[in-house]
C-alpha cells in the first residue's frame, strides 16, 4: 500500500485476505476458448471504457446495470468498497463479459453484476457460475447473496440454481430483498452450470494478459441485441 495518509486509511474500508481466482479456460459452443480470470485494479479503466457507452441503453435495464457497475469498479480502483473482485471473460484477449461482487464477511459473499458483451454463447452463464465458484470454492464461503435487476437475470439465476429467499436482508443493489445461494445448492448445481479446466496453457495466459476492447459500436450493438438493418 506504500505511502498513504492517515486520513486515507480511515476512508478505506478494512480489507480481508482474498485468494486470487485461478484462471480457467472454457471451450464455448463456437469452439472458441474463453479465458476467465481476475482483473487487477490497474485494468479497471479499460473496463470502464467498455461500460461507458451502455449507460444509455434502456433495454433490459442495461443502463442501470452499467451505471452501477461503473460505480462499483471505480470504487474498487479507488479503494472505496470492501473486498471487491472483478472477473472477466476473454476470447483471444477480447472482452466478452465481466462479473463482480464482494465479500461481506468470511462466511457471506455478495454478488454484484453480470455484464455480457458477446451474446448467444452463454458467456453470462459461464461468468456468473465462475463468480459463484470463486465465493464458494476459492473463498470458502457458506453462501452468496444475489438479486437481479432484469427479468432475464431473475429467471436465469433464481430458477436455474435454484436460489432460496433471504428477504430479511436488503441487498446493496437498491435494497431489494435478497436471494441466497447456499453452498450445498451450489455443489448440487455445479455439474450443469460450472465448466472449464485448469491450469491454462502459457500461450492462453499470454493471449489474455491484456484486455482488448471490442469497438464501442460493436459493444452497444451486441449488448442491445441489435444489428444494423440492411435492405
Amino acid at each position: 500500500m506504500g505511502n498513504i495518509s492517515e486520513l486515507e486509511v480511515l476512508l478505506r474500508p478494512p480489507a480481508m485476505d482474498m485468494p486470487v481466482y485461478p484462471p480457467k479456460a472454457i471451450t464455448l459452443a463456437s469452439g472458441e476458448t474463453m479465458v476467465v480470470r481476475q482483473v487487477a485494479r490497474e485494468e479497471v479503466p479499460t473496463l470502464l471504457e467498455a461500460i461507458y457507452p451502455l449507460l444509455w441503453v434502456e433495454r433490459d435495464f442495461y443502463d442501470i446495470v452499467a451505471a452501477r457497475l461503473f460505480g462499483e469498479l471505480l470504487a474498487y480502483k479507488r479503494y472505496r468498497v470492501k473486498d471487491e473482485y472483478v472477473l472477466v471473460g476473454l476470447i483471444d484477449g477480447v472482452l466478452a463479459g465481466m462479473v463482480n461482487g464482494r465479500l461481506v464477511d468470511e462466511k457471506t459473499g455478495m454478488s454484484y453484476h453480470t455484464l455480457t458483451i458477446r451474446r448467444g454463447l452463454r458467456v453470462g452463464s459461464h461468468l456468473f457460475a465462475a463468480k459463484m465458484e470463486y465465493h464458494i470454492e476459492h473463498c470458502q464461503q457458506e453462501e452468496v447473496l444475489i438479486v437481479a435487476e432484469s427479468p432475464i437475470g431473475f429467471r436465469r439465476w433464481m430458477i436455474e440454481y435454484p436460489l432460496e429467499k433471504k428477504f430479511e436482508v436488503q441487498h446493496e443493489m437498491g435494497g431489494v430483498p435478497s436471494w441466497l445461494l447456499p453452498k450445498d445448492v451450489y455443489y448440487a448445481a455445479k455439474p450443469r452450470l460450472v465448466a472449464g479446466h485448469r491450469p491454462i496453457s502459457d500461450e492462453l495466459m499470454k493471449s489474455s494478459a491484456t484486455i482488448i476492447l471490442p469497438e464501442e459500436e460493436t459493444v452497444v450493438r451486441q449488448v442491445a441485441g441489435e444489428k444494423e438493418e440492411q435492405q
Partner: protein
Amino acid sequence: MKPVYIAGAGMTQFGRSEWTLMQLASVASLAALHHANLGDIRVDGVVVANMGAARVNRQTALGSALVDQLALYPATAESVENGPASGASAVKIGVQAIASGMADVVLVTGVERMRVVNGLEGTDFVASLSHPEAEYIYGVTLPALAGMFARLFMDKFGVERKHLAMVAIKNHENAAKNPYAHIQQTVTMEGILTLPEAAVNNPPIAEPLHMFDCCPVSDGAASLVLVSEDVAAKLGGPKVRVAGIGQATDTHAVHEREDPTDLKSVRIAAKTAFDRAGLKPQDVDVVELHDAFTILEIAESEASGFFPRGEGHKALERGETRLDGALPINPSGGLKAKGHPVGATGVAQLVELVWQLRGECDARQVKDAKVAYACNFGGFGNNVVASVLQREA
C-alpha cells in the same frame, strides 16, 4: 387457374429490432417492390401475415395499416393469422387472388415483432396455439411438443443427438453466409455436444432437445410481389413461377394422431403441391424446411418425399443436405439460425427460394437451381403449407 409469378422478394435483417411492427413491414415491402421494379403498375391487393400483434404489439388489422404506410389505397387489404403457417397461408391467398383473375399484382408481407416481450411471455404466446383443454393447461409449449415428438421419433428410427447437432452446425454455417440471418455464429460438435463444457453451453430446453436444437425468437419481416402472367411479361427479367401450393391440416391435440411420429399433414401438403406443379421431389434443387427444432428438419425432409421414412438422418450424415450436397436444405440458415419471426417465416422461406432461383444468393448460392420447395409447418403440424417454385427461362 391462371399462372402466378413472383416478381420481387425482400426482407429485413432478422434479429432483435427497435423498429415498430409497421416499420419492419414497410421496409420489407419496399425492398420487394423495388426488387420487382413495377414502374407505374399498380398494386391491387395487400395480404399481411402475422401471429402475435394483437397480443404482443396491441395492433390489429395489419393489412389496412400496411396499405396506409405504403399509400397504396384503394388496394384491397387482408390480414392472415394462421399460427406459424401464417406466412405461406398469406402467400396462398395472394396466389388465389391472381389465379382467379381478381387481381394482377398482390403484395404479401409477413411480419412479427415478438422481442418486445420477454422470452417467457413469448413462449407462452406461441403455446396458445396448442389445444386449450387437452394440452395448454398442462404447461405444454411448442418446445414441449417438439421434445415429445423427438423422443419418440429418435427411438423409432435410431436418430441420435449427434444428428440433431449436425442440423444445427450445418444451418449455423449457412446462416453465417446470409447477411439477413439473426445468428451469424458457427457452432462446433465439440462445443455443443461432446466436450464436458457442452453441458453448460447447450442446456436442455425440452429433453432430448437442447438450446442449439431450438430456433431463436426473432423480429423481422419478409415480402413478396406476386403478379399475373401479363404483368410478368411486361416486367421482363427472371421469371419465377409459383408452380404449386398444397395445404393440409391434422388433429389439434398431437396425442390424437394415430402415429404421432408421422407428419401426415406435411405428406399431404407436399404431395398436393408437387401434383399441382406436375413435378416430383426428385426434380427439386433447393429446399427450405421449417426447422423451428432440429428434429423437424429431419422429419420434414422425409415427409416431404425427399428421403424414405427413417432415412433423413442418414442423408444428413452423408452430407447430402449441405450447401454443396445433392439436395441443399435450408441454405438460408433455416429458422434455426436465420431466425423465426413467426408470421414472417413462411414468406421468408419463399424469399430465399426466389433469390436462389434468380441466382442472387452470393456465398450461399445453390448452383443452377431451377426448382425449389418450402415447407411452412404450423401448429405442431396441424396446419402445413408446402410450396413448389420453378424458374422459367
